[in-house]
């Protein structure tokens, strides 16, 4: 058992973690943030993707006690009140979701991509979400939405 301090979506959170508590479990069960989903629980489906100090990680494989003091960003932290982030809005406008189970992970992978590469090619988008499995959409609307979000973000930056 260890006390873990995290900054989650900009807010300091403290909780007690057992050695086997994953970051995903802590987020969902202890901090009440259920956006990140538990799909395969072995790092293969990407539905639990969050940003850990800005890097996308599969939170089901991260022991919570190993990330004490880190910054964590989850899908819950993207919107500003009722105003969605550019990636979220692009997913909504482009209907890049069907059942929605992969969506939070897809969006966090997309956020990480656009943070480091504001002008990605289609191949770079494909690579960025290659760890995120979607069984509904056939990926095309998701890839298009991420490219659309990149364009919106660049347009916004130029204002």
């Amino acid at each position, binding site marked *: 058992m260890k006390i873990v301090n995290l900054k989650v979506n900009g807010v300091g959170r403290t909780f007690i973690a057992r050695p086997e508590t994953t970051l995903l479990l802590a987020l969902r069960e202890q901090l009440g943030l259920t956006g990140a989903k538990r799909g*395969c629980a*072995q790092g*293969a*489906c990407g539905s639990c993707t969050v940003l850990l100090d800005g890097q996308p990680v599969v939170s089901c494989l991260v022991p919570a006690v190993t990330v004490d003091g880190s910054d964590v960003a989850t899908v819950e932290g993207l919107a500003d009140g009722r105003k969605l982030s550019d990636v979220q809005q692009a997913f909504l406008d482009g*209907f890049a979701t*069907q*059942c*929605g*189970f992969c969506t939070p992970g897809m969006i966090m992978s997309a956020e990480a991509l656009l943070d480091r590469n504001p002008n990605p090619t289609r*191949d770079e*988008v*494909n*690579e960025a*979400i*290659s760890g995120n*499995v979607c*069984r*509904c*959409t*056939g*990926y*095309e*609307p*998701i*890839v298009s939405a991420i490219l659309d979000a990149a364009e919106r973000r660049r347009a916004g930056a130029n204002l």
Partner: protein
Amino acid sequence: MTLLRGRGYASVNYPTGMNLGGDPSQALIHATTMGAFVISLSSVDLGQGLKTVVAQCAAETLGMPMENVIVDTADTDTGPHCMGTFASRGTHRVGNAVIMAAREARDVMLAVAADELEVDAGDLETDGTGFVRLKGSPETKIHIADITLAAHFKQGRTISGRGIFLKERNYPVPETGEMDPDSCQAHACTVAEVEVDDETGVVTVLSLHNAYEIGRALNPAMAAQQVEGGGWMGVSHAVFESTEPYYPASRDHGPVDFCEYLMPGPAEIPVQSSVILERPASNGPFGAKGIGEMTANAPIPAIANAIFDACGVRLTTMPFTPESVLRGLDALRA
């Protein structure tokens, strides 16, 4: 090494619903005091969008905005009966049941409104924004929130409705085999273009062109996505997914998780174009047929035919692996 291109097509007609012991689904609807309509179902929305389309069916029938409809698919222990989500039956069966329930609730809603407005219910209409109004005299109107308050606190009535769709069991005619096993059939055709590498045997699906006749697309965006998402799954079945080589005899060597189970990712998707044709089915909700499962069907034989067109190898077992293509090419050269 040569990259061989080929094109093939396949078409499918697909039944909506099934024919075991009869195929019923039921729906209940009631108005809350605040003027919302709650649809109670046991039918499951596991991501296919059933809650959206039945809310559309209810809103259209009631003449109320979508925002006023709440779909509650809580619990098969306590909800109205539903056979389940399978056989591409949800939109058709549950949609019809919801329309029937909403019609009954609408009649009560108009009767309550008529008493409040002191007019004949037959002279009332809905305006789609939440008001019931007198035909030809749109200023004589009452909002649904006031209708439900009046029903609950003054008139002592429930605004509610019951709905069922039942496809009765049908038996074949012994002499001819003729029978009526389903309610309607949707139709589709897919043209696939592939590239076959004659050295490695790898099949790349370049494009899928889909045409679907689905009765009525209740939600065109969701229908289009079902067609293309299903197309992706068809590609996946055709050239990727397999529990081979040992399933089900042994689980010692086959894929056991997403790390080993091969699926196409975003870099392996074909270009898709899709056309939806609408020829309303007489017994469908607003003419809709089911298109859930069929969307993964046509791409598979279309891809098999395209492989044959590209390199002359006729494959009949999925998935069409590099090994099966190379063995086929060897047999042709022998």
